[in-house]
């Protein structure tokens, strides 16, 4: 469904590329862990996929269509298919928890009735029932992160891109979130998770793509966080 062809991304004021000559195929329904040291380029790959940034060179396909040539309208439609969890949360400061999650559905033009049904379910899944009225500034780190996750899953996306979804969450919550992604994946949603949670990666034995200095150094079908060849 997704294909990277020799994608390189160099940021303006940086001497070596954040992502270097990456080629990669992701099939529909896959569950992928993106691992690698800090600064390896995981978030950059997520941002490329989300078309938040454009590759410096190379091609990037989504169901045979080149993302790079998308019009603005295409991009919006494309993003509505994706549930993205950002490493820096990116919650709407002016909206409370409920409104933040509901916003993902408002954008799709769903009816108020449907929204009132779906939002509480999503909040329940990430364990935030009771925090609906809190504003982002009133949340703990882990709570804010889970609002981001609820916002991504509430719209039943085609693809879930989760960048470090458990960085601020405790052990039990992390396990639960991974289980959540797993069950969503079992229903056919493609899931890509960038993470440092080595124990969960090891335990789940999914496809693991390891990056180092912007290059893919490992791509195993059933791998761990740091499996040796």
């Amino acid at each position, binding site marked *: 469904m997704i294909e990277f062809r020799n994608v390189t991304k160099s940021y303006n004021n940086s001497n070596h590329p954040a992502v270097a000559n990456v080629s990669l195929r992701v099939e529909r329904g896959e569950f992928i862990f993106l691992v690698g040291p800090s600064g390896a380029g995981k978030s950059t790959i997520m941002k490329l996929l989300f078309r938040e940034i454009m590759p410096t060179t190379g091609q990037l396909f989504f169901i045979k269509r080149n993302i790079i040539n998308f019009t*603005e309208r295409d991009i919006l439609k494309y993003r509505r298919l994706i549930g993205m969890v*950002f490493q820096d949360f990116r919650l709407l400061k002016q909206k409370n928890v409920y409104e933040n999650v509901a916003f993902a559905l408002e954008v799709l033009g769903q009816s108020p009735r449907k929204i009132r049904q779906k939002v509480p379910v999503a909040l329940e899944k990430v364990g935030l029932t009771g925090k609906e009225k809190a504003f982002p500034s009133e949340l703990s780190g882990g709570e804010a992160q889970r609002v981001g996750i609820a916002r991504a899953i509430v719209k039943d996306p085609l693809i879930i891109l989760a960048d470090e979804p458990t960085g601020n969450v405790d052990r039990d919550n992390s396990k639960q979130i991974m289980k959540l992604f797993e069950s969503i994946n079992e229903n056919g949603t493609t899931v890509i998770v960038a993470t440092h949670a080595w124990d969960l990666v090891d335990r789940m034995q999914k496809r693991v793509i390891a990056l180092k200095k912007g290059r893919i150094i490992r791509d195993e079908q059933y791998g761990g966080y740091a499996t040796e060849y």
Partner: protein
Amino acid sequence: MEVTLLNINSLGYCLRQSIVSIYRNFWLVLVTAGIIAVSLSVFGGLLLIAVNTGQIIRNVESNVEIAIFLYDEANAEEIQFKLDNLVGVRNSTFVPKEQGLEEFRKSMNMAIPLDGLSGKNNPLPDLFRVKAVRAEIVPELAREIQEFPGVEYVEYGEKVIDILNRVTGWLNTVFLVISSLLALGAIFLIMTTIRISVLSRQEEIGIMKYLGASNSFIRFPFILEGMVIGWLGTLSAALVLGVVYYRLVVLLKQEALAFFVQPVTDMEILLPLLIGLLVIGTLLGGLGSMVSIHRHLKV
């Protein structure tokens, strides 16, 4: 999975959102409205001054007289009739030579004996005094009257008319320049304020785009909000101007000056001014928002 970019649900959402946003950004809304109020007060104040100055000048102009000196043998009644039917004449008065002498005596000094000049010895001619409807047409009018039979000589304050016309032209230019500058300044101010207020939500707009929100979906609440802000600002400006102006009018009416400087209180002139301000303010707010968020709407 077909998605529409904006539907009826979205519209309802946008409307609700504008209201919530105004409520939550109360302080910023207030400041922005305040800036619009100040700008438009100054601008509206200038307009009022311009309207009143125009009135004063017209007042002075309409007092400019044409003096028509007649031959001794002239038919005053016929000339009176002709004057009354002449386009551009506001009114005309006949001044017989006796009255002319009397006025002259008064203007010199009552104590001076001019008795020897009365009756047959009166060296002055009969004359008409004519007021025109507008100062500009006085020269034209004078030329026409000169052609009447029985008219020896026509005279008017050429110099005064000339100066008045120049002053009017000059004032018009000055007002045009000042009000254009002010208008530009006000627009600049309002746009900047809205832009800064949008700037503080730049991040939010970015996030909305990431979630797949279309430009109209993001823009609509901002524009509504901008219009409400503009409208609030203008209303305050109108209120301030109204109160200040009313006080000035009352003050002037009490002063003996009232005759010389008659403030415009005609609702036919003031109401369009008010409505114009309100429309301008509302549009400025809305358009200002629209233009300001434009730069933040790139995907």
